[in-house]
């Protein structure tokens, strides 16, 4: 310890303090400040670059997701449209079918009605025809039958005979 105290040189201590102080100030001004600042800016730059790359990646991902969504939407829309069209087609066919059916039915009905009325008319005509014919025939027959008196007598007799029966 005594040896150490003896070796301690206040002058050297003073010189060292001055030199170190000046050195710190000089180095701070000319070296450490610019060095640390440029290191910092460089690190910030790298960090920013990485961040922006990450951001770009995320954006890309978003874009891709958007694209996918759009695609899905389009596909769904197409599907819906197709479905609608199919449905419409079916409906139209159905409608056409029913209309055709009803029309056919009505035509058939009309035809039926026409046939019926024609038939009726024909029957009526036939009836009247038959009646006329029958009257004519009856007239002719009567004329024939009643051409002579005997025959007329005979008829009157028969008729009277019948009448008495009642």
């Amino acid at each position, binding site marked *: 310890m005594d040896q150490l105290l003896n070796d301690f040189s206040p002058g*050297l201590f003073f010189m*060292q303090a001055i030199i170190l102080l000046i050195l710190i100030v000089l180095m701070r001004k000319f070296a450490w400040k*610019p060095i640390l600042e440029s290191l910092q800016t460089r690190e910030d730059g790298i960090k920013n670059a990485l961040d922006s790359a990450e951001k770009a990646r995320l954006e890309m991902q978003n874009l891709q997701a958007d694209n996918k969504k759009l695609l899905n939407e389009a596909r769904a829309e197409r599907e819906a449209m197709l479905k609608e069209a199919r449905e419409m087609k079916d409906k139209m066919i159905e409608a056409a079918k029913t209309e055709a059916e009803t029309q056919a039915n009505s035509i058939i009905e009309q035809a039926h009605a026409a046939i019926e009325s024609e038939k009726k008319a024909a029957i009526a005509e036939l009836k009247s025809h038959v009646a006329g014919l029958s009257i004519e025939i009856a007239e002719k027959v009567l004329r024939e039958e009643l051409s002579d008196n005997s025959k007329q007598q005979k008829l009157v007799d028969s008729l009277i005979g019948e009448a008495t029966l009642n």
Partner: protein
Amino acid sequence: MCTFAQNFRERNFISLENMMVATKSIKFIAILVLMMTSVFAFANEGEHDNQHHEGGNKIDTPEEIKEYIAHHLKDSHDFHLYTNNETGTHVSFPLPVIVWTSEGLRTFMSSEFHHDDNGHVIVEKDGVKLTKIHSKIYELEAGADEVVFDDHHHAENAHKVLDFSITKSVFGMLLAGLLMILGFGALAKGYKKGAIPTGFGRALEPLVIYVRDEIARPNIGEKKYRKFMSFLLTVFFFIWILNLLGLTPLGFNVTGQIAVTVCLAIFTVVIYLFSGSKDFWGHTLWMPGVPYILRPILAVIELIGFVLIKPFSLLVRLFANMTAGHFVVMSLIALVITMKEAFGPVASTGVSLALALFISVIEILVAFLQAFIFTMLSSLFIGMAVEEHDHH
């Protein structure tokens, strides 16, 4: 350490081209230093050729080795390169001596002491007599012409002066500071050209990031670490470079000077005491959750801990590690001499070389580790001081 190495490897790919740029600048600095050294050295040699002819002070005995190592571990006033034992010439270059004496400021070159370290050479400057004893400069009392020593080899008629000299340690600090300003200034300038550093900056940048992300951020906290980055970075690289300089043959022992480590520790203490949050002072001085009787005792203990023990452990750790490292390396090198008698020159040189190499490799690790630990503990203490607790 392992994570550090990994980080280093991951972040750092030095291309061939950049390596070349780096080596070029290193070469340039090396050449500059060498040129300066040789100019000073020759000048010095010419001046004092005739001073030390009392025969070479060859180092042979364990006592001399011990003394040599102790001398090396101290700060010195000139930059000693080698001694020519044939002629007794010291090849070194002098550094300026700046002392505050009783008569005022005196400046001269350390060459005026003629490498004397025992108080024999007395330099007279405007009525002040100065001499150097064991790497310390003493001022002789008025009227004295010669230093008188007592039984313990303490000078009786001289006292120490305030010594602001550019000693070897101060020179080392200036060199480290210059290297830092050049290296990191270039790195900072490089960012103006582009976001990615080129050249030697590629090796420095991961170190800065390491200090920020592994030392400051986790210990101080994400919000407040910025304010202390200048101090932590400066101290980390300052200590590391000085530790590494200590491993070169130039023989700096800056971080092994107690004054230097005291100064570093005091900086840390001042910083964390002045940036202490309200919570920190509350917890230190009036610890909640303990009986009232204990609180003043705890406050004293905590205060002593923060003001004395923590900085003391900081400064002693760095000082002792570096001193011990230099001591061990030099002792192992000295094995060449101590073992020569017993094992012959070849074996002793081989053993000494192998052991010194091994310890030097460990010392490289320690050089980093001590810088790391100093910065780490500083940021830990700062983190303790600025922390804000959630009150429950």
